[in-house]
């Protein structure tokens, strides 16, 4: 629980930093919500707090970069399609973010787990 509280503290720092330097709500919303999901799902797990913080901050930066890239790539479409694009964007954007978020989270668990656990083939003993 202490890790979770610390994670929330880191989350607020990330949010304030992003809000100070980036004013675009289209860019802020996915980053803030993705970062919150990482806090909720990552910090309650057993493991090194340092690794969790590193992973959390790195994933937030990655999320920001991906969304900036997405914005640049989609800008020409937004110009051509107008309000229709905005509708598609609002429906598809959470889906796109969720796709990479779940994948990164799944792989990230290997990073925060203890090495001796990581190399175990199976936890099961059929004997």
């Amino acid at each position, binding site marked *: *629980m202490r890790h979770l509280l610390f994670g929330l503290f880191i989350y607020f720092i990330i949010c304030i930093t992003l809000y100070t330097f980036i004013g675009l709500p289209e860019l802020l*919303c996915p980053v803030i*919500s993705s970062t919150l999901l990482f806090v*909720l*799902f990552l910090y*309650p*797990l*057993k493991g090194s707090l340092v690794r969790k913080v590193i992973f959390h901050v790195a994933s937030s930066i990655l999320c920001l970069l991906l969304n900036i890239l997405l914005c640049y790539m989609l800008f020409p479409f937004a110009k051509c399609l107008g309000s229709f694009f905005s*509708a598609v964007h*609002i*429906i598809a954007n*959470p*889906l796109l973010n*969720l*796709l990479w978020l*779940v*994948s990164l*989270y*799944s*792989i990230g*668990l*290997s990073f925060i*787990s203890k090495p001796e*656990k*990581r190399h*175990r083939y*199976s*936890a*099961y*003993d*059929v*004997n």
Partner: protein
Amino acid sequence: MMLTEILEVIFALLTLLMSAYLVRHYLFTLIVLQKPKKVEQYPAVASTYHPTVSILIPALDEERVIGRILKRITELSYPKDKLQVIVIDDGSLDATGEIARYYSERYNYVTLVQRSWREGRHGKASALNFGMKQAKCEIVLCFDADYYPQKDIVEKLVRAFEDPKVGAVQGRVVVLNEPKNLVTRIVALERIGGYRIDQEARDRLGLITQYGGTVGGFRRDIIESLGGFDESMLAEDTDLTLRVYLAGYKVKYEVDAQCYEEAVDSWKSYWRQRKRWSMGHMQCAFKYSLKILRSKNLKLGEKIDGLLMLNVYFMPIVILIAWIIGIPLFLLKYYRWFPVFWSAALLFMYSSFGNFAPFYEVAAGAYLDGRSRACWLTPLLIITSLYSVLICTKALLDLLVSKLRKRTYPWEKTEHKGDGNYYIMRNVPNQ
């Protein structure tokens, strides 16, 4: 104008319902993560409580796997003078009966009961009722023919019955043939979410722990007083769970009592098995939802959890409806809370089948088991989640059609290929 407002209300309600499940499973995950119970490995637990135990093994055309479980049963560490093993050959057309007879002739505690193919083949509940007539012991345990239990599983399961309030017990199911292909790997993840976190959390919180029909058991006198298994139900296990709770008893979950199953290994078998589960669960939802609400033996938490558990197989249909309503609603009229609701609806795309454990619950379960690499497959839950939308919708339609026609839906057996033997040999080379 009126239409969009109605759609808005429906969409908001559906999303709130989905969010209730998301929060429920997040709390389950937190509960188990806070104090993970260490899974005990061999040797057997020391206990002086040794009641007499009947083990029921229903089998229908299981020649590829029946020998494996019967051999294992002879290796159990439980005192054999307190053990009665009943193999129920429910009208098999293959060598299941002959293999079981081989064991019954060599081990005096193994009994074979047989029905001809004309009398048998009416489903698991019917076979279990047939076998129950032979059961003489205080506790009755059930194992499916494709399962492979730990040697000390009986000790681990029966210790729960020292508490007189416990009416049934459930052990943990682990997939034996997990490395075989993508389907078995995904099923293994689903089992981890369900048994490592979901059942464990419900047991700790004193909610409705589910008896899963195999790797578990019950007191014989209770099941007899309840009139045996209901043969009209496709999910006799969920039916029994609710009857036990409504009668004022509890179901205990023993995470240490592990048994290895041969999981379905093709999408076709997956569809058939899960459709049967869905229909059975939906039958139970129709039969017990009101009874749960009116029950005086259940606490408020148990009632809420019981209703959520019973209606879980309707959730893929709810998601489908939410998606269908959500997109046109947004195009007709935008409102600022839409992205939040929409994100909650999308989060469900990563839920496992059966108990709807979302991806974080499954990942946390695998993490607790020390299986970080298995976690890498969590994103693939999207496949089964989307598949479950189709399965549950078809299951509901078939159930409604069979109700309208007043016909009982036939039991569809899951085929077992016996591939699990390879994985047992690999893990236990000297066996």
